[in-house]
């Protein structure tokens, strides 16, 4: 049996890019959500959480419609930035960012919320700016939440299927991810190849989750008493 590693590598690449970008987007967003007093906060929170409850195919369908070259957004992107988001890797990245957003934002938000407000206040009275307080005081003390966010985002993106299928299709080397490969091999009755992809995904998931719980336990011991 000749094994094609490309879908697995593509899945890893997508997960890595998505996780890094979401870390950059998720931290300020979670910070803002914790401290904002705006009345529209519940609305924003529910929009961010939507991917948790929405069937992935529904999200994929709307993304497909709005990114299609016939739509306003799709044509705008294509004409001005030469960017086509349907059936392309870039489109998968955008879809993954939306799809995995709550998995990054929620743990960080909850971590920040559970820190005593006196830590932030103490840093302010010591003359430190909001930014310095965030990076030197708040974030280092929510290590477990950051790690949870990173791991869940990564694992969740690895396991994406419905959204990817709708917006990315099945183009080898561009949008054919490992989860899609499993589906395709089963469709063509190629069970041993399907089994290979499935086993690798299963082992990867177990390793990722075990290491998360193991590291979290280590970190928790150090920060148990604030």
């Amino acid at each position: 049996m000749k094994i094609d590693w490309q879908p697995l590598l593509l899945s890893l690449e997508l997960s890595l890019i998505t996780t890094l970008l979401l870390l950059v987007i998720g931290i300020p967003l979670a910070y803002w959500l914790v401290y904002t007093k705006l009345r529209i906060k519940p609305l924003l929170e529910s929009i961010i959480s939507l991917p948790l409850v929405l069937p992935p195919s529904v999200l994929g369908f709307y993304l497909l419609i709005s990114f299609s070259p016939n739509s306003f957004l799709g044509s705008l992107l294509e004409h001005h930035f030469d960017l086509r988001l349907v059936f392309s890797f870039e489109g998968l990245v955008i879809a993954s960012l939306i799809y995995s957003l709550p998995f990054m934002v929620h743990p960080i938000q909850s971590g920040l919320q559970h820190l005593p407000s006196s830590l932030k206040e103490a840093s302010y009275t010591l003359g430190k700016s909001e930014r310095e307080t965030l990076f030197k005081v708040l974030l280092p003390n929510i290590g477990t939440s950051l790690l949870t966010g990173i791991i869940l985002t990564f694992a969740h993106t690895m396991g994406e299927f419905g959204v990817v299928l709708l917006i990315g299709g099945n183009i080898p080397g561009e949008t054919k991810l490992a989860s899609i490969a499993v589906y395709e091999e089963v469709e063509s009755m190629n069970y041993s190849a399907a089994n290979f992809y499935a086993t690798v995904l299963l082992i990867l998931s177990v390793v990722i989750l075990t290491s998360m719980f193991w590291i979290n336990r280590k970190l928790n011991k150090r920060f148990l008493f604030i």
Partner: protein
Amino acid sequence: MIELNVKKKLFFQENSMILDIELHIKKGSFTALYGKSGAGKTTLLKILAGLVKPDNGFIIHKGEVWNETDKKIFIKPQNRNIGFLFQDYALFPNMTVKENIQFGCEEKGDKDFIHQLLKVTLLSNMANKYPTILSGGQKQRVALARALARKPQLLLLDEPFSSLDTETKLNLYDELKRIHQLFGLTTILVSHSQEEVKKLCEKVVVIADGKIVMQGTPKEVFNEEMEVEGTILEITEKDNIQTAVIDVGVETIKNTLQKVHQLKTGDKIVIRKAADTR
């Protein structure tokens, strides 16, 4: 040194209260804000620090306006040069004792000063330990050293000793007094302990329900014979002796009652407090 006149509406679970305070603090003084919890003491301290904004009023520190709501002037806590001690210490768990103190220094290179701080707070041999393993008294000393690291002129203490045992407290009182003089600080202490106030402060401001009800030296405030009006909260009877819990605004006190008066819960009474000879 400090002129303050602020108003702020405070919301609690069931009701609200107006904090309305006018206060003058002299340079180099050690002042207590005394009263029972929920009276607005901590909020007042946080308003002074810039951590809470008043609804209206002003704060002037050494001629510099820190806050004036009419002119929309608000100096951030970062720019007020204060030291603040929190009830829960608020030490940064990700930093060692020394790093915690260093974090407060304006310039990172001020090694001599950090050593001096570690020395005066008796922490030299704990410099490289993390705060999680320290005792309550040690944590509070780290917090004090960190608050002093910025060389503040004004030190604000929010019930810093409330969760410490008596012996640790007594040691810290002496240390704090020494440090107050050594660094030429103006210190404001929020407290609900008469003992603490008597040991440390030369002036007491008694706050009840968001207003100043009395101020003076601890001797004047606590030792004077005085009459207070209160409401009976609860009456218990044992061996034919009635004991009442009475709310007198600043605190609740227990008192035995004469049965002949036939008092009941909710009655308003006047108590004459005898001179305290302690």
